[in-house]
């Protein structure tokens, strides 16, 4: 990794400080990127945001209901049992079960979010 092999480098940690005083540049709304400029009609954005938020909240509620209630549930179930003696089922419930659940929820959310975007942009 000598100096001669060093390619041209760009710093992308942010804008240079020199233009701080000026108005903030339109960052990703760059013509070269072909991004949509300020839309005259805000309705599609609001529509998309509502649907995306609903999908995100569905995933979160699922997470809260499954994993979020688990500590209370375990506490209630083991309250009658003997101290810290943890049955194998609890080990599997905490050590194995959450990961497939998280992966499936994530995969479902991505499909849903991409469909929502497709509906709005017509692609």
């Amino acid at each position, binding site marked *: 990794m000598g100096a001669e092999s060093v*390619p041209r480098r760009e710093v992308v940690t942010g804008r240079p400080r020199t233009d701080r005083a000026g108005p903030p540049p339109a960052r990703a709304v760059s013509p070269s990127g072909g991004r949509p400029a300020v839309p005259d009609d805000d309705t599609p954005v609001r529509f998309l945001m509502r649907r995306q938020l609903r999908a995100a909240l569905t995933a979160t509620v699922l997470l809260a209901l499954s994993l979020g209630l688990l500590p209370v549930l375990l506490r209630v179930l083991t309250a009658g049992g003997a101290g810290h003696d943890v049955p194998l089922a609890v080990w599997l419930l905490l050590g194995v079960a959450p990961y497939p659940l998280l992966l499936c929820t994530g995969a479902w959310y991505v499909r849903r979010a991409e469909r929502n975007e497709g509906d709005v942009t017509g692609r």
Partner: protein
Amino acid sequence: MNQTYGIAGVSAVVLATVLVGALGLRISRTTSDFYVASRSVPPRLNAFAVSGEYLSAASFLGVAGLVLAQGADMLWFPIGYTAGFLVLLAFVAAPLRRSGAYTLPDFAEARLESRAVRRIASVLVVGVGWLYLLPQLRGAGLILRLLTGAPGWFGGLVVAVVVTVAVAAGGMRSITFVQAFQYWLKLTALLVPAVFLLIAWRADRAPAPAWDERPVFQRSTRVATDRPLTLTVHAPVRVTVTGTVDGRPLDGPLTLGAGTHRVGPGTTLGFPRGAPVPLPDGGGPGTAPTGWAQPLSAGREQHGLYATYGLILATFLGTMGLPHVVVRFYTNPDGGAARRTTVVVLGLLGAFYLLVPLYGVLGRLYAPDLLLTGDTDAAVLVLPQRLIGGPGGDLLGALVAGGACAAFLSTVSGLTMSVAGVLAQDVLPTLGIRHFRLATLPAIAVPTAASTVVTDLPVADAVGLAFAVSASSFCPLLLLGIWWRGLTPPGAVAGLLLGGGSALTAVTVTIAGGATSGPLHTLLAWPAVWSVPAGFAAMVLISLATRHRVPASAAATMARLHLPEPPRGPATAPGAGPKRSRERRP
């Protein structure tokens, strides 16, 4: 553990890292503009890199040590570390990528057009980064102490120097390849020994561990201590001693009566098979640091449920604000790819964390003496030698040591990069962005110094505390900034200051040892339960009160964050991205 093999393992990992880095550099040299080109990193490769960077010493060593010490409750740590990515996926991943922000301060300024918000966010990023670096450096100290017998602060210093040199030399430009490689290295370093350990465990008639009673030595075990210990023995036990016990130099058999015993530094105790493990006295100044477990063990007895929910809130909501994670999302080509990256990350982290509890359980069986010395974090490292032994055990031990080394290197270098980026840009204005390399020095020197100063204090679960600070400041900023048009700069400032500030204060008090027990300690050690709602409430209420300050560009920003990018051909991808960056001569 065998020192030669361990050192060989660590050296091999460092060498392989440099090699893969050089390879990545060769590939990246074909494009003139490395960073912009890396916006076309495919989702799967990027997911390897995110996972490689994210799986830190706390995951690789700490979780197994916690399970060893405290049992199944500690599995909430890996669950939280993984579930945080699901919350990030659902609310943040795609919009954050579309915002074009490289750091959280960048995002804050782009969304709110306020320098004040940016400055506060910068301070918080540096705080979270330093908190996260502390336990990594301590873990490095632990490994090097076990491998070479060097003092604990030395290992942290070595890692700090290696990372500083690597970052400053520019070797981290190939960071994507290095980190992707390190994910697979870490997974292999746990998976391969786990297979052999399970075989050895079955051959040992598969004993079941127990957490409800005092652990016993499954085999006759020799325990060497390098610092003074105070032990509580409940029933008389016959041991062999080389060293000093209760102030008397001894060399030979001895019966330890019930009661407390002081063991001098440099003493070796030999326990017979089936003897209960004497535990160190809690709380006294002579006790060993118990690593990740300490603040929990104090609070968990009376406030278990509160602590569990504090942990869940902090990790579920805090992941999205970790500076080194956010940076990696910028390298995705677009928002959709950022989402797909995150799903793959969920799978990769799950695969890794499936293995970790195994080490904790086997550690409870075969390395209970770690409870005695307080080095429970070393469970993963010592198990191959304990269970398998011989050259095979040495080789597997070297593999595990190498994996642990990869865990520090990837996380520490990623964090140093992101903290240095913020320091160079926002905190050290006189240096300017050309002096990015200089900023790496304070970025890592401060946590290194802190880790040498506070070695005997319960700093090791600073990872959990870093998550708590992130969850109470950046989580409200990101969620409200992305999903609510009504967020105003004063509201964001209030939320960041109240949520992040109160969590940071609680964390500082905890680390400084302000409250050592009781409900106050529990409240401060797990601040997320109250500081996250405080941050959200302050942000929403002040924003509503200052409605006239809503940025004029809010609608345009929302469109940018949420509308998908127009399709780009892969051939035009590297050049088509917005050129926000500025060239710098190396």
